[in-house]
């Protein structure tokens, strides 16, 4: 779906149609020697604000919850989707945690520290650059649209609108599942909704506990929905059109996040339930 996919079309070759099988061919002819069924891939992008204001409990809590989150997401993808994780941090500059997306089975969280300003626009541009068939999304088989999860505690110090404009032209972003978490009083939910395209997938955390909860709710729900095909036929009894299904995963993500968040607002449910 990215612009680059056009250039890659030529790489795709149909199987040779040679049915005159030469039995003396030296090819591996064991009917049991199968390799794993080709799995669909999903990359989860975490885009994390590590500016100076995140210093202290915010970044501490974030590091801890991310470490704990990885095994939870691992369970989500073990069936027929290969899940990979990429982490982009932004402060005065932008930086990837690893040089390419890492399979969830092998992913280890490397603890982040916070300092500097909030170059969110630059982060959007960097994200757009890497969300390409020639870069981070280079799986030869089919991919689901990526999950992109933005976390920030403040207002961008650069021109985020320009960055978002670049990002918006990226097809992977357009079809991706987008969610955002605002941390503390400074973060602006309206601006985050510009990024996600809908306020339904924007959540807000004011305390350490909430931060941990919100990250888990959003990351687990998004990877669950992102790593599965849509169950397209839900209530319809008429032929579905492209418009019927457009962005249905993003809508479903919004619904589920809102359900879970509202549940967590009520005090009768303890922090350890609802997962």
């Amino acid at each position, binding site marked *: *779906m*990215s612009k680059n*996919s056009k250039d*890659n079309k030529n790489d*795709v*070759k*149909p*199987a040779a*149609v040679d049915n005159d099988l030469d*039995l*003396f061919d030296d*090819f591996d*002819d*064991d*009917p*049991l020697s*199968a*390799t*794993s*069924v*080709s*799995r*669909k891939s999903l990359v989860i992008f975490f885009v994390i604000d590590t500016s100076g204001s995140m210093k202290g409990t915010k970044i501490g809590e974030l590091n801890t919850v991310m470490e704990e989150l990885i*095994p939870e997401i*691992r*369970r989500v993808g*073990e*069936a*027929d989707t290969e899940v990979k994780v990429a982490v982009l941090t932004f402060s005065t500059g932008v930086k990837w945690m690893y040089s390419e997306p890492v399979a969830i*089975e092998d992913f280890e969280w490397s603890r982040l520290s916070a300092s500097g300003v909030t170059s969110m626009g630059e982060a959007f541009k960097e994200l757009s650059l890497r969300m390409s*068939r020639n870069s981070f999304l280079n799986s*030869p*088989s*089919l*991919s*689901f*649209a990526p999950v992109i999860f933005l976390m920030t505690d403040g207002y961008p110090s650069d021109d985020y609108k320009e960055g978002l404009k670049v990002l918006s032209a990226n*097809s992977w972003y357009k*079809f991706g599942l987008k969610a955002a978490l605002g941390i503390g009083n400074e973060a602006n939910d309206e601006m985050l909704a510009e990024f996600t395209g809908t306020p339904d997938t924007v959540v807000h955390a004011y305390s350490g506990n909430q931060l941990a909860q919100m990250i888990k709710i959003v990351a687990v729900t998004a990877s669950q929905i992102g790593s*599965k*095909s*849509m*169950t*397209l*036929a*839900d209530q*319809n*009894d*008429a*032929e*579905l059109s492209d418009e*019927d*299904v*457009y962005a*249905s*995963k993003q809508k479903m993500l919004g619904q589920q996040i809102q*359900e879970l968040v509202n549940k967590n607002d009520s005090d009768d449910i303890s922090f350890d*339930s*609802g*997962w």
Partner: protein
Amino acid sequence: MTDLKIGQEVELEYGGRATITGIIGSGGQGVVYSADYNSTSWALKWYDITKMKDPQQFKNNIKKNIDDGAPSNKFLWPRYLTKSLSDGSFGYLMELKPDTFDTFVDILNTYKLKVDPLTGKAMKQDVRFTNLTSMITAAINIANAFRQLHRAGKSYQDLNDGGFFINVDTGAVLVCDCDNIAPDGSNFGIGGKPGYMAPEIVRGVARPDVQTDKYSLAVVLFKLLFRGDPLEGEKVVKDVCLTEAAELSHYGANAQFVYDPDDDSNRPVRGIHDNVIKFWRMYPDYVKDAFIRSFTVGLTDPGKRLIEKEWQQLFIRLRSEVIACPCGRKNYTSMFKKVDDATYECPKCGTVFSTLKFSNRESRMPLYIGSRIYECELDPETDDFITVVGELVENKLKPGVLGLKNVSDTPWRVKMPDGMFYDIEPGKGCPIWQGLEIQFKNGMITASVEP
């Protein structure tokens, strides 16, 4: 949804309590816990009723299934319903997956993940069929399980790779997730798993029923044999990103079989679909034709889909057409050189195999040490695909002399080299010779070596 906690007790409809002991996994409809009931360990499926259209109707259907009982022992069937909690949530008890079985998902992935409880590190462990015969037996058993279910007037609705446990040594099959099973024609909300759903369900114009089960069955069998997706080829991969609209097109209105003989635009792609490319060349035409029919005319016309019995017979034949050559090669006769109608030759080592002709079928059974005659080949009505009645062995007293041993419980009537007929009692055998003739089932079926 209401989560259950370890140690929590849940009341059952017919009395007694089950105690939660752990979590086994979670799925789209809820969570599966392990639980103790009557000093036995069970699996407890607990529903997220907020995702159900009509929880009471769903519960009534499970209750009816429990009352009806399982169609056969190939099903891990719901056994005991729990009482509903105050918020309406409920679940049911079923037997646990035996340790000797693996999930079909793990078989397709060729490994399972074992998580070290201390480090949280996931380790890969191989999951593969230990021999070709057990893989084909699994195919027979899967087709048969659905035949039994459909004969009971029910449809499975959500047939997919998560729905089976298979023993990779024997090919025994257990169908699990039986909670969406409903009388044919009813549907309580489930649509199915993409990739396994019949195109008419994907398109939104049909609900799951026996006919859509037949489509899903063909997908399951295709994946078991060819280890790939029947509709995922060049045309699909070109899209790169599987958006909702792309799925609707490739699995719905524009679904196209990768080996459609009349349209090569969606062929498997080297480097991605290597399994399908490799295995498609190896299977005999009658197997390939069955899949071609399922995924060409059967895509749009549910009446053209293969019935379970056809799959069953086809795989019984395929299993009887396997040769294990002394050189170590084990493969279908389609991968051996056909010298004449009655003889095959190994292309690698040159060993020649004669065949046995049966009066009740056209295909011939190759003879090699270890080749077997199954009860189901002599009795077309049986649902037993594992019992062996005869096996080809080497005479222990006369090395090099091969014969068929009667391992059934009834005598055979056999023409011996002296031209006379003798009774071969269970446990005895007869040598293979040019004029061999065996009468099974009081002479109803005969097998002979003559060309």
